[in-house]
């Protein structure tokens, strides 16, 4: 694959390397602007960048689940010498 599509003084491989930093909001303003300009003018980086961003968004959307099963919680509390959790009402 040729990475020599230089737009805004960045080539595609440089943009590839910056994608996580871009998504995490960690780029310096000048670099951020250069990446944005490159993506706006480079169809393949725009296409790949979109898919990469969606993959990361889907990871983040998995979120904090599943939760600890009740029997695991009970054994943990017992091991730590804690009182059992009260039964939920209703």
């Amino acid at each position: 694959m040729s990475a020599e599509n230089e737009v805004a003084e960045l080539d595609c491989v440089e943009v590839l390397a910056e994608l996580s930093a871009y998504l995490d909001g960690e780029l310096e303003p000048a670099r951020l602007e250069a990446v944005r300009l490159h993506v706006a003018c480079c169809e393949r980086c725009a296409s790949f960048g979109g898919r990469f961003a969606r993959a990361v968004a889907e990871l983040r959307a998995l979120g904090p689940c599943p939760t600890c099963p009740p029997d695991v919680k009970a054994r943990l509390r017992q091991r730590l010498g804690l009182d059992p959790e009260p039964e939920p009402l209703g």
Partner: protein
Amino acid sequence: MSEVAYAADSDDAALLASVAAGDRRALGALVDRYQDSVLRFARSLVRTDAEAEDVLQETFLAALRGAAGYRGEGSVRGWLLTIARHAAYRRRRKEAAYESEDGHDLERLGEEAGFGDLHPSPLEALAQEEARHRVRAALMRLDPIDREILLLRDIEGLDGAETAAALGLGLAAMKSRLHRARLRVAALLRNEEGEPHVG
């Protein structure tokens, strides 16, 4: 004060200080607050539910013993997940395997994930639950070194510094490993979609 009220009114550092002082209700509140996160993370690092539960217990036992040693560097959650990681790797006996980047070429990783490919992803067409199932399956197919950083940074939501601290990495090394892990999971997702490769 009940454990529920304790959890609602105390920040993590204060809670841990109370644990260090021998407050059992504070320990219960800490457990309630983070057992889900610790168990999820532990399960991603070991082979069975039973091992994950052992890591969960070892983590909170270690936290109980070591609460007085917490210096407030990074979040309590990050501290607990670091303890869990060490406990899991002691079980796996592979600590030495997680020292340095594997040196894979960034361009090759990008190509495998679809870099340079103009075909639109069919991902948009999947139902949300199907997409979540696929992402979870892809996560579990990753090497543990990739899975753990994605779990910490993208799923548990630790910030960059917390993630680096939990993994014993410098910030730059963490960012490099994170980006490569994201590219690898993107490649797995792309392969499952059956997207054509661009030569």
